[in-house]
């Protein structure tokens, strides 16, 4: 199968269910991801937003086969990624993790952390070449060469995240999963890291799957946004389109809940406050998962789960009513 549709990454009906022990003999399936499909073009950024427990991190990890998918397909440049050929794709797909503190081994120096992908895939012929490559990567992410022999715990959060990014870049990937890469950072540092992601994309032409819960940041960095709720994508489309004219009632309320750093707008606007809590993914409501909190829910919502339908210009929404 050739790469005929021009997508870099294509995910078809991805499912990830985890067995959870609920009693001594009983097991319930936790449906973390339940039928997610999306496509990413080369050099594009797809933002993936949702609240904690909606399965966005699981999507990112399953893409890289860190969890074995329960069902569905992952295609990279038209070829299916399976457990057997995943190591080949780990040179093309990489990941930047959320927590800059736990994602770097505290017993390794920066040089070895960044150099590990080079070691694993044997991407150098001499020690000198390895060092040269590492210093090049460090420069790319704005670290000083003199930091190479320091341990990760000596750096601040922002610098640690740069080390994590350099590690991901070491294999020259075409696609990076960014799993909440800035949410653990201070506001003033977030902007540095976001700018770096944008610069790297311009320079190296990578595609990103940018997972985050901060909608303002996702809107800023993404070309398209997908909104997840309890293991499914409820809305996907152009970033500005989704942000400024959301269709799904969940997206609408999510956007209205985002605190806006402007006292006048913040105090004037009307919030749509959702009542109640997110249902447990081990015990999903029938039909549309959002219906328990949705102000527009009807009987149809309880009976059948809506699928994504195109509302023009690739803006897809999964809702019966809107």
């Amino acid at each position, binding site marked *: 199968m050739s790469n005929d549709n021009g997508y870099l990454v294509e995910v078809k009906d991805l499912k990830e269910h985890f067995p959870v022990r609920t009693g001594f003999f009983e097991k319930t399936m936790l449906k973390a991801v339940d039928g997610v499909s999306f496509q990413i073009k080369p050099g594009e950024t797809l933002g993936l937003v949702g609240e904690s427990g909606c399965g966005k991190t699981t999507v990112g*990890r399953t893409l*890289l086969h*860190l969890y074995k998918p329960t069902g569905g397909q992952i295609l990279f440049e038209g070829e299916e990624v399976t457990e057997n050929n*995943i*190591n080949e794709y*780990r*040179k093309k797909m*990489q*990941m930047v*993790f*959320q*927590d800059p503190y*736990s*994602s*770097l*081994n*505290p*017993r*390794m120096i920066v040089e070895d952390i960044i150099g*590990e*992908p080079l070691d*694993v*895939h044997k991407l150098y012929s001499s020690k000198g070449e390895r060092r040269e490559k590492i210093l090049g990567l460090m420069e790319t992410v704005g670290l000083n060469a003199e930091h190479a*022999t*320091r*341990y990760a715990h*000596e750096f601040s959060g922002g610098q640690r995240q740069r080390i*994590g990014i350099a*590690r991901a870049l070491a*294999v020259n990937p075409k696609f990076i999963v960014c799993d909440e890469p800035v949410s653990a950072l201070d506001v003033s540092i977030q902007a540095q890291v976001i700018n770096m992601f944008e610069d790297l994309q311009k320079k190296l032409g990578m595609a990103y799957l940018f997972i985050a819960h901060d909608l303002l940041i996702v809107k800023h960095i993404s070309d398209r946004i997908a909104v997840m709720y309890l293991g499914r994508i409820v809305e996907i489309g152009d970033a500005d389109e989704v942000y400024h004219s959301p269709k799904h009632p969940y997206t609408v309320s999510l956007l209205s809940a985002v605190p806006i750093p402007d006292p006048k707008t913040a105090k004037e606007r009307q919030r749509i406050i959702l009542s109640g809590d997110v249902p447990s993914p081990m015990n999903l409501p029938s039909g549309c998962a959002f219906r328990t909190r949705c102000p527009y829910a009807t009987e149809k919502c309880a009976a059948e789960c809506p699928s994504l339908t195109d509302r023009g210009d690739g803006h897809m929404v999964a809702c019966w009513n809107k």
Partner: protein
Amino acid sequence: MSVEENKMPKRSPFSAQIDLAKFELATEEEKRQQDVMSESTTFLKDGMRRLRKNPLAMGSIVVLVLILLLIIIAPRVVPYTYSGIITVDGVRDKSAKNLAPFTYSKLEQKYIDEGGEVFPHILGTDEMCRDYFMRVIYGTRVSLFVGLFASVLVLIIGVLYGSISGYAGGRVDMFMMRVVDIIYSLPDLLMVILLSVVLSQVITFQPGSLMAKLGSNMVSLFIVFGLLYWVGMARLVRGQILSIKENEYVLAAQSIGAKSGRIIKRHILPNCISVIIISTALQIPSAIFTESFLSFVGLGVQAPMPSLGSLANSARDGLQSYPYKLVFPAVMICLIVLAFNLLGDGLRDAFDPKLKD
């Protein structure tokens, strides 16, 4: 005018004459000088710095080093052996029984009066005319050797078993841990006694070998340590690995494509090494204690090889007349066990990341 006043700085008495030169833009260089990264420390350096600040741990190290020097140097200096009867001028001295420290027997006294030289009996002699100082020194050697050897045994088996169980997880982990539970439930003293009875009849040692000198009791003690005592270490290592596995850097290594062996070697074991070292340091005194106890009840080393426990045991007989004979080996056991325990505690305080900050 009032507006003008408001504009004045609130706190510092600030006049209109300001030094304009100070209000030039600072250069990047000048700014960078403000930003000094703190000095580079490694995990080891940092831990050692904290360890050095701990007087108890440092005192323990000094005590242990002194004991070590003593048991290495003393046999080279003192002309007596642990098993031989004292000889004076080539003649066995049967009168040198139960001498008090720094006293001489009649024979020796005569020899000295005649102008000969006799090395003093620092701790006196025992009831079989052997130099007690040398016996205590050799007893310490045996006890330390047993402690270290047993701990290394426990370390190797425990770490291997624990890391396999923890990393594999799932059914393998479940099965391996149930085996550990079963071993935990075996009474260890009973095992030692049974094994030593069986071993002494089954195995014959080459005469003169180290094992023969220590005797079948000791060998069974080692086997029991190897079979039973590693379970604690295995549980500890498994627990550590389970929690380290949750860290994102292990996930990151997987996403890079690193194989399991590499992940265990580079990412998991280096991060639980501190816990392993600490618990080994605490394992040593417990092994020494067990050995001393077994020797005390008569299941220890083969005579004439002394151990601190058997020395204490034989000192019981003359306790009324020669109480110091119990004191010396007992003090030695206390010193060693206490020093290792305090050192282990100090190591934990200095290196355990959970107590950090």
